[in-house]
């Protein structure tokens, strides 16, 4: 039960965090200048966007949940089941970022979910 809760936080907070960072990046704009000084300016610009901080907070929560799950389960189980974030990412991108998800991508997500189910069933 506890594993399920941690997995839920890893997947939702991790994906939510990535979506927030992705949204922040779209606010900041595309990077064209890769010189160190320009990259530092880019980071400071990104840090002024609220979505960025929300994203960092959510990813931090996901990281500590990953550590908690690794304290009770094997790494060969934990990392593969976190692939469920591909499904969460597809749903999140569609609902939150209004991206169009192709049928091929949905097929891939479905196959990932089948794989995660098999790994989950292999649990001790």
């Amino acid at each position, binding site marked *: 039960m506890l594993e399920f809760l941690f997995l839920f936080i890893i997947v939702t907070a991790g994906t939510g965090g990535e979506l927030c960072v992705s949204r922040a990046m779209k606010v900041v704009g595309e990077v064209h200048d890769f010189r160190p000084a320009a990259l530092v300016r880019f980071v400071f610009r990104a840090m002024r966007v609220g979505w960025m901080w929300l994203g960092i907070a959510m990813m931090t929560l996901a990281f500590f949940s990953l550590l908690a799950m*690794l304290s009770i389960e094997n*790494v060969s189980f934990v990392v593969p089941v976190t692939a469920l974030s591909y499904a969460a990412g597809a749903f999140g991108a569609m609902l939150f970022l209004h991206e169009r998800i*192709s049928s091929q991508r949905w097929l*891939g997500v*479905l196959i990932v979910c089948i794989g995660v189910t098999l*790994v*989950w069933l292999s649990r001790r």
Partner: protein
Amino acid sequence: MKTSIFILFIVLFAPLGNVLLSKGMKRIGSAKNWVPSDIFHILLKIVTSGYIWLGIACLLIFFVAYMLVLTWADYSYVQPASSFSYAVVAMLGYFLLGEAVPPLRWMGIFVICVGVFIVGHTHPRTTERA
């Protein structure tokens, strides 16, 4: 050649980072009752664990390699290639940590790799350019 080296970094350092985090957390142990004082005690152990910091360093190397390779290589090439890290993490868990990996888990990991490969082969841009 440059792309292959960076993909190799991605496929090795992400699983290695996770394996080191796992090693660190197994040594620290899990919280008994998940009460705040218990969690605080574990957090203190986490920030003073060498394995955890090594794991974070490996994950940072992975992250930088991933970001850099995306500046010249296509996402649709990088993402499927990095799906091998799911198999590598199981192999490292088996060989370095002595974890038991049952056949069903190997099969599940293989299916996940196929799924990620298909996801990665879809077009990376799904919205029109502004």
